[in-house]
């Protein structure tokens, strides 16, 4: 799959932003006044900034309002509805903390859960794709949630929660990669089933439909990510999980905390790039490529 920059930025930063909103909503940290204003500004910059970035890959972003209508069947639509709901509820909760210095507990919990709901609905956009066997697994939503919760806790300065979640996240990610590597073969879609010609003999793509490339090949056939997958996986694990945990366990210094956040963001950006670049869509089989 083509790793579009806008979608990678969205997945990374919105995940962190909504993770931070979750911990704020749950009352793990209860800032008031100016301090609350700063916390909520950071969370909204990440969450909303990511959402805005995600509209850059649309052909017609001016019609985005229509995307709220099909929540009955579409995970993308559900994500949109959930995001608007979470952002409104958390704005009410934030206003209570900033202006009145009071914690509207119930509002916070609803908003926090809705924030997590946004991350879950995002992950299901990918996990539902039968055409991309690597994504179609429970580890996809599990990793989205863990990264959002872990990264959010890291941003929120919750050392113990962040360390535990990042350690679990790192382990699950390695497990997900290992299983994901086999899933295309396990799904059983091959050039033989794609063409229905397998009963005659071995099928090979002889001539593509056109001499040039096309939308399908640009969008679905991406080889560079797989070429360097091993190195990128090591970089991801190091930056997103190991380095932040080590920095968290050192005696607390603001520099270490900032470095932990930066390393984690760089690691998650790499992880997301790999998430797309490594995923293979079955349509590549028609081109004899993957």
């Amino acid at each position: 799959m083509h790793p579009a920059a806008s979608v990678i930025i969205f997945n990374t930063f919105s995940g962190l932003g909504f993770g931070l909103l979750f911990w704020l909503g749950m009352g793990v940290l209860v800032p008031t006044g100016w301090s609350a204003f700063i916390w909520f500004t950071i969370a909204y910059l990440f969450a909303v900034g990511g959402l805005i970035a995600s509209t850059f890959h649309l052909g017609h972003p001016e019609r985005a309002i229509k995307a709220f209508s099909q929540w009955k069947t579409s995970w993308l639509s559900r994500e949109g509805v959930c995001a608007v709901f979470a952002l409104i509820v958390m704005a009410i909760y934030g206003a209570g903390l900033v202006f009145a210095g009071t914690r509207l507990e119930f509002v916070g919990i609803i908003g926090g859960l809705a924030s997590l709901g946004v991350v879950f609905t995002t992950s299901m956009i990918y996990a539902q794709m039968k055409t991309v066997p690597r994504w179609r697994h429970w580890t996809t939503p599990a990793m989205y949630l863990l990264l959002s919760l872990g990264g959010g806790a890291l941003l929120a300065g919750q050392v113990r929660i962040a360390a535990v979640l990042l350690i679990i996240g790192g382990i699950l990610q390695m497990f997900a990669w290992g299983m994901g590597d086999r899933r295309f073969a396990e799904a059983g879609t091959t050039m033989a089933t794609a063409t229905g010609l397998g009963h005659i003999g071995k099928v090979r793509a002889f001539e593509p439909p056109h001499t040039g490339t096309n939308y399908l090949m640009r969008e679905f056939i991406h080889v560079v990510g797989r070429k360097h997958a091993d190195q990128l996986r090591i970089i991801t694990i190091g930056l997103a999980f190991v380095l932040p945990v080590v920095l968290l366990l050192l005696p607390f210094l603001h520099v270490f905390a900032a470095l932990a956040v930066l390393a984690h963001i760089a690691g998650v950006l790499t992880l997301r790039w790999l998430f797309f670049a490594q995923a293979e869509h079955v349509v590549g089989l028609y081109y004899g490529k993957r």
Partner: protein
Amino acid sequence: MTQLPPPSAKKLGLVIDLDTCVGCHACVVSCKGWNTENYGAPLSDQNAYSGAASGTFLNRVHSYEVQPEQGTAQLIHFPKSCLHCEDAPCVTVCPTGASYKRAEDGIVLVNESDCIGCGLCAWACPYGARELDAKEGVMKKCTLCVDRIYNENLPEEDRQPACVRTCPAGARHFGDLGDPDSDVSQLVAERGGFDLMPEQGTKPVNKYLPPRPKDVEPQIDILAPYLEPVAQDGAGFAHWLDKALSALPGGAK
């Protein structure tokens, strides 16, 4: 709405005969010709006259080489367009309701004025039947020439998809695959028509007819047994050269 309608009785679709298709791409050209100037946004090309040409097509013809266990390889031309699946995954993922399956005849269409160009339907389609137009930013796909098949302004023989109308080999057939007595359904039953990627669970309406088994040539030359066998081991200078080179150290035997 992107909820799929209950399965329609009428299932319009194509039957493509892989035995007959000669790979001339006439269907590709006629499809682009009709659909670029009729229903919806035109099908744009980018850098059409350069080495990096690219463009939107609703129908593309692949060619595959199939090597049986024994005997010579076969070349099979393979036209591919939207299969108008009964369980169309491209429809249910659409966030805006732009993608829909018609309840009356099962044709899968895109309402382009609602399409935000997110590309998710193309991700959900295992067949590569949908292409986002680089110029218009909306999703394009085969309409089964919905603006021809019901068009009473056209002579009756033209009321079929452009690709079917133009196919010089008669490799493409259009009809109601929901009616077991229709010509296309009979053809599918008779020739063992099959689905592409059945494991994806999309229940395609379009069917493909497999290439017929190749004949095994019987001995028809009645004089052959009485003729001198053709020498297999060469003669003259070539024969001497072959032997001489083989005799050298390391020479091929």
